[in-house]
């Protein structure tokens, strides 16, 4: 399938008077892992929030799975099969691990196989051991796993993944990379916001580079890795 699953044309967004995005355009196809790279404040998180409907935004076109999602509330967008994993994780700390997963549960669309607790625990074995524990008693890495697992419980076709490697120990980052690869293996597309080039390169097919609210580069991951100029201008700190 070559037609885009997620398609964005000229997306602009602002927080009150402060404009953040100036006409971002990008596409992602089914089953593809696309990295959206850029420094802090470049507009990565805002792009994701605008897609899921958490930030007021305007766009020439913003569609998911063939549906115009510009005016839809978040829950309708989520129900179309677009999952969102926020950077701050936003797990429900008063709830147990299992209850957190329950909040995310939605039936699978088109008769495909649904994610089950067992399948998720296979990817995130740590979670299985702490099913009944309150989420507030988990480490940062465990919370990151939980927030991804919670989104997968909604059986999405695509996941917007915001900086999953941020602030985590290298061994956990490796687990995150494996999780992304496992998601891709089941046919889930991923739009991955990242600053960590190694992490992005390990899992992504293509990449966009964003700076000051506009896309500055797009190409395959290999092209980005080969392009020193772009990397130095927009990615290295």
């Amino acid at each position, binding site marked *: 399938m070559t037609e885009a699953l997620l398609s964005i044309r000229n997306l602009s967004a602002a927080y009150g008077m402060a404009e953040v995005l100036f006409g971002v355009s990008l596409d992602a196809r089914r089953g593809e892992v696309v990295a959206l790279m850029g420094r802090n404040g470049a507009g990565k998180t805002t792009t994701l929030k605008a897609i899921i409907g958490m930030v007021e935004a305007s766009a020439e076109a913003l569609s998911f799975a063939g549906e115009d999602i510009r005016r839809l509330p*978040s829950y309708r967008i989520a129900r179309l099969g677009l999952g969102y994993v*926020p950077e701050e994780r936003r797990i429900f700390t*008063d*709830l147990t691990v299992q*209850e957190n997963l329950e*909040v995310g549960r939605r039936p699978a669309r088109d008769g495909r196989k649904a994610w089950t607790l067992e399948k998720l625990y296979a990817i995130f074995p740590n979670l299985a051991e702490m099913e009944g524990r309150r989420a507030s008693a988990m480490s940062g890495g465990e919370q990151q796993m939980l927030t991804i697992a919670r989104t997968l419980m909604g059986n999405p076709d695509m996941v917007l993944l915001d900086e999953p490697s941020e602030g985590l120990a290298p061994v956990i980052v490796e687990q995150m990379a494996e999780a992304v690869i496992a998601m891709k293996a089941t046919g889930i597309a991923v739009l991955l916001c990242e600053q960590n080039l190694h992490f992005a390169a390990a899992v992504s097919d293509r990449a966009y580079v964003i700076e000051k609210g506009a896309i500055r580069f797009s190409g395959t991951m290999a092209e980005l890795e080969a392009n020193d100029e772009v990397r130095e201008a927009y990615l290295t700190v």
Partner: protein
Amino acid sequence: MDLSFIIIQSLSGLASASSLFIIASGLTIVFGVTRIVNFAHGSLYMLGAYLAVTIVPLLLDVDRSLPMFLLGVLISALIVGVFGALMEIILLRRIYHVPELFQLLATFGVVLIVQDLVIKIWGAVEIPGPRAPSLRHGVFIMDQRFPAYELFLIAAGIVVLAVLWLLMQKTRFGVLIRAATQDREMVAALGVNQAWLFTGTLFLGAFLAGLGGALQIPRVAINTQMDISIITEVFVVTVIGGMGSVPGAFIAALIIGQLQAFGILIFPKITLVLVFLLMAVVLVVKPWGLFGKSDAAAGRAILPEGILSLKRFGTVDNIVAGLAIAVLLALPVFGDNYMVKVGIEVLVLALAAFSLHFLIGVGGIVSFGHAAYFGLGAYAAGLLVTKGGLSMEPSILLAPIIAGAFAALFGYFVVRLSGIYLAMLTLAFAQIVYAVCFQWVEFTGGDNGVVGVWPSSWASSRQVYFCVVLAFTLSAIIALRHAIYAPFGYALRAARDSATRADAIGIDVRRIRWFAFTLSGAAAGLAGGLYSFSKGSIDPTMISIPMSVDFLVMVLLGGIQTVIGPLVGAAAFHSIKDFFMPLTDFWRMFLGASIILMVLVFPRGISGAAASLTDRFKPAPKPAVAPS
């Protein structure tokens, strides 16, 4: 006091605790999910009771049995649940994103509407309810007779607790409610339709309120004041327990139930005071209640934006102010007696509203009980004249001092809190004052108040007294305005906008807030003192919640972002009230609907609307250029 007596007494405390818990659990669940403190929860309770006294007797006519009684109670509660769901769909859904002060006011609008509806449908007289079949007898516990129905109520509370626990822990709906209590936006991003979740929550909350009300019918005669009396108690329970916490509500209800049961033996007159004192103590020790979380209330603006830019009076403003004063001075000369009377009332209310706005718009302190200080001033002046044998002059001067002293006392606790808890505590203090004035019949005349509060003979004509009032109110307003423009006012606004940052640059936030609270209370007290002499009497309505709400409405009607707004608001509000109230039996309904409309359509008030109108005709402001 022997053992059996103590046991009986604590059992009856348990029975009231049980009723309180059933009602309070509904309020706290609704607050947890929607973040709205639903003032109309007491109205839902009252509706439940009225529906039950209508429905239960019909069913008992069919078959005089306990199941029929319970069926009637359940049907009533379900109808109230549907009413709550409709309220969510029609009103609450539109106000989730407005500041908490507006939410409180809008739901209070529903209180007013329901009051008039109930009077229209059921009349204003008390209705005794049917007793519950098979539970009419007494049970002997250690040789003391105890009503079986009270035991049944205790059991009902436990059943409700168990069912709620199962619902919250074991069902998807419960898990979603708990998740939404923490982070609504994230729940939506996971594909949950919040609209239904919120409607469902309101249904549940209203059902519990209705159930609590319906269960009361064998115990008390149903009356139209049930809503306000229960809502203050239920607020206390949820605040002490921690807003949003069901277990907290349970523990708090137990404590309050026992406090009332034994307090009535020791201080029969001031049980209400005891309850509010407990709340004040709990909030000072644990500002978020016993089981509450700070993050639940923080991060949300209780306030609409207050006064942002202070403009000094320009030529036009000076002319307008001069003209206004000239008109006021001309009023006693050219106006008739009625106009002078209305003029006095407007001036007094304008000062009260201005002093409240000083707290809200400048200090960011949302007082939901400003009538307390107005009333304290009125009672101080009135009692000094009638019981203290003083003349008018010293009484008027002492009124603000006494009201200010109480404001200092209460304010000491109030300024330690913020957000909705602060508003609740001001409400609690106001209710303490109200309860004392209402219950201390020998001294305050109770419900009837005291008459014979007349000015000295030289000021006995309305025209002269008008000039007295004008002199006092104008000086007080100018003094307060001066305080707004003084460094003190700037510091107060800094503390309003960011308490932590103000603290970091060396402003003693608590202290200046405390001072502002005292000052504002004193000004309201002066207004109250002047008011009592104009009416010739004092009575508890001057301290009641509706009076506090009237002041808030004046402030909001005038516009919260302007300094002069509350004066305009007081004049507009009082004129409208004076004109319409005699014309209609449905003043409360009209007022309630107007409040709701104002919150939905004109949140910035008259002055705010006027300001945006003038902005529209002004040329667009030039972009600011930074000094080089």
